């Protein structure tokens, strides 16, 4: 008898929870309805699966005038370093060089090379060393920086960086196949970037 009661309770709590979620979800846009239609044609008995846009808060629209602050989302595979932080400027290490991003920047997709990302907020500057990724800057002054690995610059150990640089330069000179050369070249690039990050 008590088991049934607990089962009933669990059922109501989950249904309450799912109702709470459905109130958070923004209205599904037009193209998703195509998907839902074609799904119900093929498999009418099951609910259609959700898609990622139903789990994401909608992004703000492009404001008519340039906003004063840039919103930065800096994400890594294992953590979101900064999410929705309002800053004055960020400098990203794009493959074409250090690129400064201010609010109202032209929408851009930039591929990043290993280097320093610096976040300027008033008078504070936080520096991270990134190992490549992408920076997406949207028209509504939201910048998404996605990197594979990032560490604050003071976590880098100069001795290990020097050693790594020496190792990889040696590997590069002794590399035979293209694959080995490519790997060694990447190692050299990353380590020399780290070197200039610590010293510069």
């Amino acid at each position, binding site marked *: 008898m008590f088991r049934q009661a607990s089962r009933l309770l669990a059922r109501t709590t989950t249904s309450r929870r799912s109702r709470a*979620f459905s109130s958070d979800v923004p209205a599904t846009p037009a193209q998703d309805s195509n*998907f839902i239609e074609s799904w119900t044609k*093929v498999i009418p008995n099951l609910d259609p699966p959700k898609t990622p846009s139903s789990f994401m808060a909608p992004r703000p629209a492009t404001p008519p005038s340039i906003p004063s602050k840039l919103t930065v989302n800096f994400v890594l595979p294992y953590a*979101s370093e900064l999410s929705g932080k309002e800053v004055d400027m960020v400098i990203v290490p794009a493959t074409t060089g250090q690129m400064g991003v201010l609010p109202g920047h032209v929408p851009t997709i930039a591929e990043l090379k290993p280097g320093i990302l610096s976040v300027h907020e008033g008078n504070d500057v936080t520096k991270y060393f990134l190992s490549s990724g992408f920076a997406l800057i949207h028209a509504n002054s939201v910048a998404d920086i996605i990197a594979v690995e990032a560490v604050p610059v003071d976590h880098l150990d100069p001795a290990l960086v020097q050693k790594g640089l020496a190792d990889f330069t040696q590997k590069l000179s002794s590399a035979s196949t293209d694959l080995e050369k490519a790997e060694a070249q990447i190692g050299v690039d990353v380590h020399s970037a780290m070197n200039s990050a610590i010293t510069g």
Partner: protein
Amino acid sequence: MAMAALRREGSRFAPLLSPRPITAVRSSPLAPSHEDEGPIGVRYISTQVVRNRMKSVKNIQKITKAMKMVAASKLRAIQTKTENSRGLWQPFTALLGDLPSADVKKNVVISKGLHKLNSGPEKETKYVILGEKAKAQLIRDSKKDIELIMTELQKNPLNYTQVSVLADEILKNVEYDALRIVFNKFQSVVSFVPTVSTVLSPEIVEREAESGGKLGDLDSYEVEGGETKGEILQNLAEFQFSCVMFNALLENACSEQGARMSAMDSSSRNAGDMLDRLTLTYNRTRQASITTELIEIISGASALEG
């Protein structure tokens, strides 16, 4: 409901007061006879059998409790990872939009099983399967549609390097227009939602951008670096794929551990209930046999006296 069951079982043991229970009880250590027939044709159970049953149910309960603890600890470890990785796919969806219904010729579906997507004519769908369970399910009817099968993913804890190698393998071996990743998104320990994530190949992205609609303003984005826009878009698509895969695998693992935990939990609760009922049965049997012994002794004594 439990009371009704007990009452039912109580009525089963009423005929224990029939003549031969002592022999049944005494002979039980040597010859466990489960069901003896009394003179009226009613049946009763010896305590030995009940004791054995209790022992085995208790063992099962211990095992399922241990499995639940293991699943709970794994869940805790992987849940923090999953929640941290949730920010990973959001920038891509914000940029490239989410087009589950993009009309493409070649669909490649990646899944850990339990889902089967059908599409209309002219569209070929290929499957990339991760995990043994999915393989068993899909290999029976869609054998010719399976491109790649990858197993033994849960040996080492998931990290991004592993997933990027996996993504690399898939991208190398499979030609695709759209990759659809099907997984269970973890919402809470008792609820998982099946979700489909779509990654489009660069050509389709170009096509959709030109035709307007959701990706219409992709063209307004300046592309920095690299030689051509196409190259950057390709890198972006590959990066997007590995990020989305990473999140999908983590969510799937979380959902699996959550399901396991709740299954083990209900199973150990079940075993606990069974154990309670068996204990009552055992006590009844024991008390009934003691009562009949007493009755026999007393009636024997009173026969001697009077």
